[in-house]
């Protein structure tokens, strides 16, 4: 390994580290200005994220869906598509997995669980297929369509568990008949639940392993297969890809389906592993956070895992931080934004800390190619 390679790797580690550090520092200054105690806050944050086995388990639990929704957004970026729709795909995935999970009593677990997971993935795939196909055949922009489908998904999900309105509407198909006026599904059968790796009170389920595995698989697909190469070519320059004989339409649709499937899987895993049912108060918030994760991870699957870990830890520590120090948990969001800004603009970090760029090959992340094609 040559010296310059070492320096490049050092640079690639240094910049994100300094970015996180600077964001925490700036966050501390903000807290200090507004009369909060930043040290107490960060101590609480650390305790809540890593201070005990339970804290670690919370971090892992928060990280799991973020890996998958982050991958979903990242994969789409690779093909030059902006998938704002991960939250809708997540919800559809949840609902579809519950639909299988609350039916088919008596199936053995090794059939029921994969079936429920697959249903979730299929739901997500379908929800990603729509914007893909509309983009290819009608030119409808995927940003508009995915945003709109998020709303449709949340309404659809709410309807499936709807206890029935007051104007004589029929209740939704998944509504738990024993719940009276409460809108929610029954719990999924034991045979459809993801087993615990570490049981109560830590509540770590096998979903985290699935998510990590998916990150590896996606890394392999993107960087080691022809499909991945085609996808990246389409993302870099769709015109050139067309001349090179790549079927751009097919790649666009397929990428959106994969992206949808990943987000749908996130929904299925959260539901089958953790909540065991669907209720309208479950939102697709992690889908929107997936955008941050993907950007923070520079759309690289391994980077996505690290970014999801960081965000998961911040989310996990937030409650403890507020509990111990009284600092409003919203400051976490400010810190997230700052981390993202610093990672995405290494120039800022380089200027502050006077770091020289090792070579011209490393530039700021570019994920978007504009609205055009």
């Amino acid at each position, binding site marked *: 390994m040559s010296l310059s390679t070492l320096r490049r790797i050092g640079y690639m580690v240094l910049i994100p580290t300094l970015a996180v*550090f*600077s964001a925490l*520092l700036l966050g*501390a*200054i903000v807290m200090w200005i507004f009369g909060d105690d930043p*040290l107490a806050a960060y*101590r*609480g944050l*650390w*305790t809540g994220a890593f*201070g*005990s086995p*339970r804290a670690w388990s*919370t971090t892992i639990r928060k990280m799991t869906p973020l890996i998958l929704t982050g991958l979903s957004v990242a994969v789409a970026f690779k093909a030059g598509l902006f998938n704002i729709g991960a939250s809708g795909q997540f919800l559809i995935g949840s609902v579809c997995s519950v639909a299988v999970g609350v039916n088919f009593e008596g199936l053995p677990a090794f059939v029921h669980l994969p079936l429920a997971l697959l249903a979730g993935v299929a739901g997500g795939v379908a929800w990603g297929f729509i914007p893909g196909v509309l983009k290819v055949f009608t030119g409808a922009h995927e940003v508009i369509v995915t945003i709109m489908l998020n*709303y449709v998904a*949340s*309404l659809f999900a*709410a309807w499936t568990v*709807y*206890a029935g*309105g*007051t104007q004589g509407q029929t209740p939704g198909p998944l509504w738990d008949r024993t719940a*009276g*006026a*409460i*809108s929610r599904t029954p719990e999924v059968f034991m045979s459809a639940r993801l087993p615990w790796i570490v049981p109560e*009170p830590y509540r770590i389920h096998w979903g985290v392993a699935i998510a990590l595995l998916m990150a590896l698989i996606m890394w392999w697909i993107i960087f080691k297969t022809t499909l991945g190469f085609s996808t990246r070519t389409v993302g870099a320059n769709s015109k050139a890809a067309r001349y090179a004989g790549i079927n751009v339409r097919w790649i666009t649709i397929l990428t959106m389906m994969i992206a949808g499937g990943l987000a749908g899987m996130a929904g299925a895993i*959260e539901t089958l592993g*953790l*909540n065991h049912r669907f*209720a*309208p*108060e*479950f*939102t697709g*918030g992690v889908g929107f956070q997936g955008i941050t994760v993907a950007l923070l991870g520079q759309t690289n699957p391994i980077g996505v895992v690290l970014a999801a870990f960081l965000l998961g830890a911040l989310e996990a520590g*937030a*409650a*403890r931080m*507020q*509990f*111990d120090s*009284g600092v*409003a*948990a919203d400051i976490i969001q400010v810190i997230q934004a700052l981390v993202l800004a610093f990672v995405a603009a290494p120039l800022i970090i380089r*200027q*502050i*800390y*006077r770091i020289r760029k090792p070579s011209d090959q490393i530039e700021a992340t570019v994920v978007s190619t504009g609205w055009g094609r």
Partner: protein
Amino acid sequence: MSNKGVTVLLSMVLVLALLLSACTVAAPAGAPAAQTQPPAAEAAPSIKIGLVTDVGRVNDRSFNQSAWEGVVQAAQQLGLKEGEDYKYIETQDSKDYADNIQQFIDAGFNVIVTVGFALGEATIAAAKENPDIYFIGVDQFQTEVLPNLTGLVFHEDQSGFLAGALAAQLSKTGIIAAVLGTDLVPPVVAFKEGYEAGARYINPDIRIISTYHPGEIAQAFTDPEWGAATAKQALDQGADVIFGAGGITGNGALQEVASAPGAGTDVFCIGVDTDQWETLPAARPCLVSSAMKMITPSVTELILKYANEGVMTAGNYFGGAALAPFHDFEDKIPQEVKDKLAEIAAALEDGSLSTGYGQ
């Protein structure tokens, strides 16, 4: 160039300062939980009260706030110290309910109040696991009785019925409206059904236009612009009494009516949950009353009962539900309207009149 130098210098100083301070706190940071907890727990069995909000804020001018005020009043009577003996956690995401409750359990709190129907399941689970801790679940109807869990519930349909009766008597156009949170939450449905039944009880031909927030549950109670725009829409359609029932969404509706032409003379509004005359002064120009549920006194009462007598109230506890005072409208509301409302309240109380909800 020198400008850049200053920036760098400044940031270096800050970095150094942070590093230094980080070093000094590094030692105790390892065991903060152990540090705070044991002395309190080992001392005489004192009361420590924790409150977990529903997604939202503790001072939301709505049910989170009412419950917290109940905690505060109880704590003050017991001479507790805020931040140590009683505190709250604001829930950021519905997935965190269980974690937030656990936060209090870990810290040795022995009375835990959870606010909102959505926390019901997490509360039941925690109560089963921790039989020594007393739980109060606001708006959580219990179908099975746990010895250490009180489901604090209300007859929202009854105060809604009174609000509807009041609205129907005030209306000159024969059209009244309701701008509501979401029908995914049973108490809101109860308010609506009661309101409509009450209005029809006074005037069977009255036109009632009402709608729930169209969006997801996380947004349904925090979308004041939808509430305001919908209230305007109802006014445009000729409604002259508007019932705003849905947290901040409903507040938006009340304020819209308050700033409409003719507020307080031709058009009126009715608040919800607490006496909104106190919590939402901006609505005063039109606010004739509020369909209350007495969360604050009920929470206080339940906590004091446990603190003073050691009694955990099991099963469901029905808190009071009534109309708030008329305040400045006291003189403007005809005596016969007041008499009629008193008559209905009495009839609802003794069961000779039913709201028809939940049958």
